[in-house]
């Protein structure tokens, strides 16, 4: 079998050798008639072109010199300006401040973007206590005598709660001494907690009520995945420990809303007390009259009246106890709203890390969005640039090929 050499490869080898010889001849490394012939051809080709016109050469030289001088002046001015900047510390500080300001501006823009991109419903808004409708509404149309004045005063001294952390303001003190006045107090509090923490917070509230000497009148906890979760508890707490209990509740979770009300029931208490006293006095009088009665009819009549008075006394005692209970216990309605963005108030590091992660995530999303816009634009520009270059090359080659 004969092996035929590949003609193209042989041709390439010949061509390469020929080009090497040409290079050697043109560079003067190769002597002999062949080398001389190539150099002569080069000189002949070069000699065909007329020399550069001295005027043009001079003009071009001057123009380039002018450009060079302009460039050097620009560079030296730039260097001088930079040198001045570096000479003074104040200027350096100013430049650093500018850099810092720019960085701060970028950071602020990212934060603003983060806040703007957050869904409205998930914005972790912590309602400051002083902006919540906290007030002491004393006396809601209390008809009993003497209560309206205290009610007005109570309303007038409605105090806003202190700023964060939410601390419940002490209730307004009516003008009358506390020992003499009977007041019915109630409050309602809305807390925000993570849905996973809803049950825990509710249990903590119940335990707190028991520790405070009260109890849970009613409770309703509703936890739904992917939907709103809420717990509602109605507490009965000793009025004397209401402030402390509310403060403790406020520490369990961020307070969204808080309101308090106060109703003066001194009139109702006095009236009940008076009625009881009257009934007791009547009973005493009837008993005395019964002791002096001599006829059967008188005795029967007195006993009947006595029986009636005793029932009245029992009713008035019950009424008085009810009023006393109203004054000594307070009803507190606590709503715990499940909020995905809410977290425990005290965990600042955890919360800070979470917020930082959120900001980074939002920044990443912003970068992704920017990339989604810029990358196709950049690809398009690059494609246009390449297409323009290819087209330019094509038309230039056509200028050669068509001639």
């Amino acid at each position, binding site marked *: 079998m004969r092996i035929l050499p590949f003609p193209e490869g042989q041709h390439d080898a010949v061509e390469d050798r020929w080009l090497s010889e040409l290079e050697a001849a043109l560079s003067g490394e190769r002597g002999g008639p062949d080398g001389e012939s190539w150099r002569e051809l080069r000189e002949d080709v070069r000699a065909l072109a007329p*020399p550069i016109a001295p005027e043009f050469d001079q003009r071009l030289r001057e123009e380039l010199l002018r*450009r060079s001088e302009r460039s050097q002046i620009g560079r030296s001015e730039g260097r001088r300006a930079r040198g001045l900047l570096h000479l003074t510390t104040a200027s350096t500080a100013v430049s650093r401040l500018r850099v810092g300001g720019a960085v701060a501006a970028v950071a602020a823009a990212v934060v603003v973007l983060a806040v703007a991109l957050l869904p409205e419903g998930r914005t972790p808004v912590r309602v400051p206590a002083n902006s919540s409708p906290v007030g002491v509404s004393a006396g809601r149309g209390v008809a009993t005598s003497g209560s309206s004045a205290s009610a007005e005063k109570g309303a007038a001294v409605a105090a806003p709660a202190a700023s964060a952390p939410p601390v419940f303001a002490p209730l307004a003190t009516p003008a009358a001494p506390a020992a003499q006045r009977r007041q019915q107090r109630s409050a309602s509090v809305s807390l925000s907690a993570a849905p996973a923490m809803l049950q825990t917070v509710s249990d903590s509230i119940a335990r707190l009520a028991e520790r405070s000497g009260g109890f849970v009148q009613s409770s309703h906890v509703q936890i739904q995945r992917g939907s709103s979760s809420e717990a509602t508890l109605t507490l009965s707490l000793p009025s004397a420990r209401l402030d402390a209990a509310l403060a403790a509740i406020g520490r369990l979770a961020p307070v969204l809303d808080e309101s308090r009300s106060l109703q003066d029931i001194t009139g109702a208490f006095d009236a009940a007390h008076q009625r009881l006293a009257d009934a007791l006095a009547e009973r005493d009088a009837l008993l005395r009259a019964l002791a002096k009665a001599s006829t059967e009819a008188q005795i029967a009549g007195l006993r009947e009246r006595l029986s009636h008075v005793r029932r009245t006394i029992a009713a008035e005692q019950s009424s008085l106890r009810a009023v006393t209970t109203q004054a000594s216990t307070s009803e507190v309605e606590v709503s715990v709203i499940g909020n995905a963005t809410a977290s425990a108030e005290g965990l600042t590091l955890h919360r800070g890390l979470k917020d930082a992660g959120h900001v980074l995530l939002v920044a990443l999303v912003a970068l992704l969005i920017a990339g989604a816009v810029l990358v196709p634009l950049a690809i398009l520009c690059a494609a246009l640039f390449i297409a323009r270059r290819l087209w330019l090359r094509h038309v230039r080659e056509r*200028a*050669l090929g068509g001639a």
Partner: protein
Amino acid sequence: MRGQAPRAQQTEPKGEEPEGSLDEGRFELLFRECAGDLHGYAISLLGDRSAAEDVTALAFERLYSSRAKLDARRGTPRAWLFAIARNACLDELRRRGRRPQDELRDELIQDRGACEAFEQLERRATVRSALSALPLREREIVLLKFHGQLSNAELARALGVSTSNAATRLHRALTKLRLQSADIDCQEVA
């Protein structure tokens, strides 16, 4: 300037300057080295003195403007300069409908005739005729090689083709030039 046969002085980078960058001194040196060659290339290709001057000025201006972007890995400043000039020449040819002017034919002979030996004059006239007979694409590569004094790699970069393609084209063009010259000689003898 023209007629400095091989590249007498190379614009090698100086110590402090980054490789490939072109400072004022090196640019001046490049100008002194290349202005004549560049002008010769342009005028040989275009056949028009004013267009050749425009191309020369444009090439130096563009090189000066982009001297900070010069990358030594992508060729010497001389190669860059000739690549710029080539593009400018092709643009000029495109503008004028691909026809190189031949207004220098007589000027050429008059310029050279007075001072050079008759034999040399005759030989150069033969070369000129052979060169004129070449297709523009091949004439251009011969001019670029001899006026630009570029290596094959630099030639390839200026042409925007591979080195082997440039070498093949150069080989073909020079072979044709030699054959054309031989034919013309034979005709004259006959």
